[in-house]
């Protein structure tokens, strides 16, 4: 018999804890797709029957498509804008000889921990003081604030993991900073850029509080769900809609994380 390995030993208490943790986190969410298939109007056990009718009903609702279109527009612009802004920011935070780099990084990451409510109210105050009418543009602005830290936290390790001497080699071979960025840096951070686009799109697509404060007459999808919650008869189809959003978000985040890790082990082969 081999020596007992303390750290690899199967630990029943920990395993039970882990299972309990996962149950607590995800089982409530699983009720949403489950009841979206319930033929009855009320969410209770035993279920009245299985149906896809609520999903079919979604397609007959015009406002759902309007809201979906709004969310897609906002999501795509926010993904593009926050990623474009995050690339030079992440480059500066990882490369530049910058006094106070750590506090600056912390400051940039602040929206992750500042309550959305606070940020939403603050932006609303500023925007209305400036006399800017609320619209999808102001929603997008709020979402960029929320999404920037996500984009930067995805891109920063990409820059830090990248091999500095590749950029030096490019300079040595006669390319200036601009061309070096496009010919060497960008191809090497590309998976991170794709990951950032996917993640920021998902965050924007699912975001509610900023949209609640900053949207005008056009509602995003979460806003639409919020306004429809008052009507019990529309609740089952909202569950169907939520299930679809849930699946799409999971898929996008999973894909994003996969891109974020892609090629990371390859570059270590030639890194310092």
């Amino acid at each position, binding site marked *: 018999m081999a020596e007992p390995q303390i750290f690899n030993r199967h630990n029943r208490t920990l395993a039970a804890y882990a299972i309990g943790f996962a149950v607590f986190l995800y089982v409530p969410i699983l009720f949403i797709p489950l009841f979206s298939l319930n033929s009855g109007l009320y969410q209770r056990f035993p279920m009245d029957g299985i149906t896809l009718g609520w999903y079919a009903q979604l397609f007959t609702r015009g406002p759902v498509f309007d809201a979906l279109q709004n969310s897609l527009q906002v999501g795509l612009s926010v993904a593009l804008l926050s990623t474009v802004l995050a690339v030079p920011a992440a480059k500066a935070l990882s490369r530049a000889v910058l006094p106070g780099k750590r506090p600056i990084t912390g400051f940039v990451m602040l929206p992750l921990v500042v309550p959305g409510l606070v940020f939403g109210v603050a932006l609303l105050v500023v925007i209305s003081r400036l006399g800017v009418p609320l619209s999808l543009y102001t929603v997008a602005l709020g979402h960029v604030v929320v999404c920037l830290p996500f984009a930067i936290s995805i891109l920063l390790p990409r820059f830090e993991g990248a*091999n500095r001497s590749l950029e*030096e*080699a490019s300079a*040595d071979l006669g390319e*200036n900073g601009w061309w070096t960025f496009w010919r060497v840096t960008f191809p090497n951070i590309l998976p991170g850029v794709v990951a950032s686009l996917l993640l920021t799109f998902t965050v924007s697509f699912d975001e509610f509080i900023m949209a609640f404060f900053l949207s005008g007459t056009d509602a995003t999808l979460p806003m639409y769900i919020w306004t429809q919650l008052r009507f019990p008869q529309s609740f089952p189809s909202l569950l169907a809609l939520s299930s679809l959003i849930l699946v799409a978000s999971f898929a996008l985040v999973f894909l994003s994380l996969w891109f974020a890790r892609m090629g990371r082990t390859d570059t270590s082969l030639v890194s310092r």
Partner: protein
Amino acid sequence: MISIRNVTKSFGRVQAVRDVSLQIRAGEFFSLLGASGSGKTTLLRMLAGFEAVTSGSIVIDGQAMESVPPHNRPINMVFQNYAIFPHLNVRDNIAYGLRRLNIPKPKQAEMVDEMLGLIALPGYGDRRANQLSGGQMQRVALARALILKPKVLLLDEPLGALDKQLREQMQLELRLLQQRLGITFVLVTHDQEEALTLSDRIAVMAQGAVVQVDTPTGLYERPQNRTVAAFIGTMNFFDAVVHRQGMPEVQVQGLGRRRLNGQDGGRPDGTAATVAIRPENLTLHSTQPGPGAVEGVVQAQQYLGGRQMLHVAIPGRTTPVAVAIQGPGDAFISSLSPGQNVWLTWKDDAVLLLDAG
């Protein structure tokens, strides 16, 4: 070709390079040799333009380099880890620097093919960086730099990552390539053997300063101080004191009085000094061959392939004296075993007198 004048580089309070002045000639294979932290890589990076000089000046081919960024310098570099672009294949890696030169595509392809031939990797053009071995990456890095026909090629420990056999093969290839192309090579290495076999001239660096600049033979046979003597090859050091009454002599710890044949450099009477003798300049005898011989006891035998090293303990000295014997040695040498008494002799000319330290 390269003129380095009083160059100093400080990182905060640390002086990585101190007041270095060097002249590197056109077509020369020049090496910067030193242990890690000796400032050799920093100096090379200043030549490439990746580090700014704190004070002093660098002139390459008659042009001052202060305000010239790396991408405009007439030099190219082979990086320590090769820095092959992982997202490009071998062809695109080699052709990387050609974009700026406005060379038509067919001509570019021709140049790349020529380079692939030069580095003996024809048919490897479509491979990716991660499909190459260390030696192959090394060659691609060379081709990528040489295709631009630089006036100076900088090499930062280019062979450090290779195993011994490949390293020796690449050393030979590098030397032949440099002689064929006539380009000035500046090599950074911590491997004294590599520097000795490759270079026309070597600058030995220690603690940020250049200790000695000389040919390989010069460094080996006439080291100017103990640092250089200890760094290049094996050396036996003895503490000594200069005596000038009558014949110029030196009192050597463990060896007694020895005559000096003008090696003293005019050191006054009573100066503490170091006597250095190469292991191959010592001769072993089974019996006392005459006056001046020193008796010792064989402590250990080291077989090194083409030669062997005997370590002989002598009275009045803590470290044994190393004696090198070329080839298998005669019957007497092969009969030696630890614990045996032997006698050591050497020619007066083989003694180097250095500053104490």
